[in-house]
């Protein structure tokens, strides 16, 4: 079935460098630096990436960072909690906009 997303396209990511090599190299240099061991461990960064992948709902990122989290030593319980963090922030961001709703209602109501 034709779909917009294909798992094998993930391995073609580097082809984005063909359109503009300089920008691609800058992006990859930055990307690698971001995920290197720093104040946060590589394992912690992979868990954050997994949560963000779910928040932005990127199937490529979910594929890549599910494997990456396992390869950094995380387990499915930790990974599930990371997804719940994304879920809580996404849900919370909807809910907190309810304050805006209440402000409108308050203004319009007697």
């Amino acid at each position, binding site marked *: 079935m034709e779909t917009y997303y294909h798992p094998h396209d993930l391995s073609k990511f580097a082809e984005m460098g063909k359109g503009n090599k300089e920008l691609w190299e800058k992006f990859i240099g930055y990307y690698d630096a971001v995920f290197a061991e720093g104040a946060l461990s*590589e*394992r912690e960064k992979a868990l954050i990436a997994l949560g963000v992948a779910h928040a932005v709902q990127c199937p490529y990122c979910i594929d890549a960072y599910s*494997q990456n989290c396992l390869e950094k*030593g995380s*387990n499915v319980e930790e990974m599930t909690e990371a997804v719940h963090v994304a879920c809580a922030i996404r849900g919370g961001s909807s809910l907190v906009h309810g304050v805006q709703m209440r402000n409108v209602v308050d203004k319009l109501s007697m």
Partner: protein
Amino acid sequence: MGLTLLSRRDPLASSEGQLKRLAAAKACPPFQEKLVAAGIDPLHATGITVFQINVGKFCNQSCRHCHVDAGPERTEQMTRETAELCIRALSQTDIPTVDITGGAPELNPNFRWLVEQARALERHVIDRCNLTVLLLKPQADLAGFLARNRVEVVASLPYFLSAQTDAQRGDGVFEKSILAMQMLNGLGYGVDGSGLALNLVHNPVGAFLPAKQDAAESQFRRELSRRHGVTFNHLYTITNMPISRFLDFLIESGNYESYMERLANAFNPTAAAGVMCRYTLSVGWEGTLYDCDFNQMLDMPLADGAPRHIRDFDTAKLNTRRIVTANHCYGCTAGSGSSCGGAVS
């Protein structure tokens, strides 16, 4: 746990079946091409510092990833006669380390004799231990025997949680493993200053590469201490080799091609130059010689010109022998590399 491939009469029980499948992998070029590109083909031994003896396939466990296809129903066991040939060969050398594996090597009737003889030759002895063997009633004195003989214990523990460990090694194995480690700690194993080394082996519980060794070691140390009061010396990360029961898992789970691709993409020339086969000699339960325990399970004997049996042991011919490789070797050269002593680079 499931039965062995052999008792299931699975085609992968034969080395031919495995090698055929490995050679047919579409996701990776032939391993030798990678060696050529890295400028290290042909790969040669650099001497022998580890004399590894596989005493047989009998084991009290049937782990899902086992590269030996070991289990309780396997009967292959090294005889005293072959064990004596091993000790005779060893005595002709100054090889410092004797690494005894299986199966569960301790269940071979000649295990303790081998340990005592190797120690009498003043060699460092490693026991590759599945931990649960220490709790078997007939082996009640095993831990004490290992401690008295100053044997290094290299113990399998894939993860610091029961779900993952039991998924790979069998129901209840984690709990028994913790009890065994607590018993070893009680004898001084893994305790600073005792001189009794307890090192752990971590294999990923699935079709992915192991974590970086230093990071995984810190994580295991923290979690095992916090949860169970267990201590150890070092953690070795070992990549699962795409042979035998792990190969079966890869195929059955639809992960075979992607795993081979992952291994090949992670090929590390530095790790390839330092692989353990370059400094190890592996002896099979029948006395046949191999470059490593994995080649042994694939029935890939030493290259032409090198002695093929322990009775023909010849240091000069073995020290610089050409290493025999195939696509499974990607397992030792991926990422930080993998060996019986953990990461290579």
